[in-house]
């Protein structure tokens, strides 16, 4: 039984989270005894061959303008047709803005079961699929059973490392019939973020809160991030006051991330903040208050003034990078 995986590009490359999804689809397909078809609608990319290397046995590309633009209703139509043509019994997405828009619509149209934000591989036993997802804003997990004739799973980014050990496959054009699809939505403007690293996909994240006192002090945060090759994030009050752009806001009301390393500087560790970051593998907290609640949820803590500690940490990282 074959598996369809939706792969997406960002800044001219296949998104890392999409490659995680291809790996995931390949493991699922090997359980089900079938191949993986990947559908790509993001135009040019410098590393399209990685989709095959990640485990896809077929790569279909569609270049119709509404698809490249990311029109959710058009993508849904394309996926519906790809499910039919590939006779897929499961569809895998990365859990991101696109899948939040498209996956449930697709599930409704195809009467499929949907589990979003999965954090573990699909288990197959006696023909029944089950999968573990993150619930209660990261405070718990739930194992779901999927009983659809078709099932859709979206995978929380950074839940698995990417492996590229397969063979590359040649891209084949996939013809999508969008004639029945007249979009009732018109794009009036598109603002792209300038950040080089996408926060939900970043493996390393440096984040800061109100303890930094003002936007003029973010230089040390950016320098630390740059020395590590990390993305930057912030607490909610910081984005609310406008010190940092709102897409950097992590937590319950912002985005949830699960990087390998989360460094929190001058953030108290309120439960709503933790809801967005406690899936991180390793957490480092830098705070001048030894009583800050964040220390209870940290792996490593530094009690000290950010304005002394962070520059020292930057030096130490630079020394480490020079030696490795």
């Amino acid at each position, binding site marked *: 039984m074959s598996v369809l995986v939706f792969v*997406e590009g960002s800044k001219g490359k296949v*998104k890392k989270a999409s490659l995680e999804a291809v790996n995931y689809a390949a493991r699922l397909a090997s359980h089900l005894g079938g191949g993986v078809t990947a559908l790509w609608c993001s135009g040019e990319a410098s590393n399209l061959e990685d989709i095959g290397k990640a485990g896809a046995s077929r790569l279909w590309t569609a270049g119709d303008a509404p698809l490249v633009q990311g029109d*959710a*209703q058009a993508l849904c139509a394309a996926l519906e047709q790809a499910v039919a043509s590939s006779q897929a019994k499961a569809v895998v997405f990365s*859990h*991101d*803005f*696109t899948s*939040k828009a498209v*996956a*449930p*619509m697709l*599930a*409704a*149209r195809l009467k499929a*079961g*949907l*589990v*979003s*934000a999965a954090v573990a591989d699909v288990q197959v036993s006696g023909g029944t699929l089950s999968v573990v997802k993150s*619930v*209660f804003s990261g405070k718990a*997990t*739930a*194992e*779901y*059973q999927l*009983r*659809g004739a078709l*099932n859709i799973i979206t995978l929380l980014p950074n839940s698995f490392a990417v492996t590229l050990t397969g063979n590359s496959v040649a891209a084949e054009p996939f013809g999508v019939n969008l004639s029945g699809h007249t*979009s*009732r*939505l018109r*794009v009036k403007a*598109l*603002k*792209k*973020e300038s950040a080089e690293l996408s926060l939900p996909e970043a493996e390393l994240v440096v984040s800061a809160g109100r303890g930094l006192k003002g936007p003029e002090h973010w230089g040390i945060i950016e320098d630390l991030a740059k020395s590590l090759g990390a993305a930057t994030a912030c607490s909610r009050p910081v984005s609310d006051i406008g010190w940092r752009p709102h*897409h950097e*806001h992590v937590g*319950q*009301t*912002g985005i949830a991330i699960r990087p390998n*390393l989360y460094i929190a500087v001058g953030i108290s560790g309120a439960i*709503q903040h933790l*809801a967005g970051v406690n899936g991180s593998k*390793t*957490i480092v907290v830098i705070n001048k208050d030894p009583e800050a609640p964040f220390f*209870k*949820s940290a*792996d*490593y*803590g*530094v*009690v*000290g003034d950010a304005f002394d500690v962070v520059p020292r*940490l930057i030096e*130490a990282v630079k020394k*480490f990078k020079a030696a*490795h």
Partner: protein
Amino acid sequence: MNILVCISKAPDTTTKIAFKDGDTRFNEDNVTFIINPYDEWYALVRALELKETLGGTVTVLHVGPASAEPEIRKALAIGADDAVRIDLDAQDAGQVAAEVAAFVQGKSFDLVMAGKETINYNGASVGGFVAGYLGWPYVSMATKLDVAGNVATIEHDVEGGTEVLEGELPLVISCAKGMAEARIPNMRGIMAARTKPLQVVPPSGAEALTSVVKYAVAPGRTAVKLIDPEHMDQLVELLHNEAKVI
């Protein structure tokens, strides 16, 4: 303009999460419930603002057992005109949405608004399901919404940025931070809510295709290792050799 706002009920954000019956059910003992924040702060309040400028009605809809009536009454106290509860303890987002869509069908709603996700199930999917069932366009993760005549202008989050869309009603929209500012119900609202209509509707019988078989509380972290603030080279060494993250 007639707006339907989907509200769900969730444990207060500071709740300590626990399970019972062999980890198959959420333990509700001593839990304070709230309206899911995105549904209340963003979807409901923006719906009320639109109604105040454009006229029409705001109906809140909840799929769930009678135990949610305090949260439904709170939505009425904040300003919704009437409420509907579909009497079903639903098993997943698809089943909730099938009931919402069955209710909307054949009525004259111009807009269905949901929250971006529930803070207990984090599915982020009811809105998209509703749109799929109804065959209406869907805009997810909206941070701004304006309506003029029959046309809605919506700003929403997409991969790598934000997009502004324009489109004719009817639509389904999921709402995130930015849509509106939270409102606190006043005494008059609370009094009025007692007598506003709350209709209980039997479920349409849609089946769930997924369900939870077991929960687990996320493992806590082991005690924090404190590093001397003078020796950041030690921290880097631990991140490299012990945590293996750099």
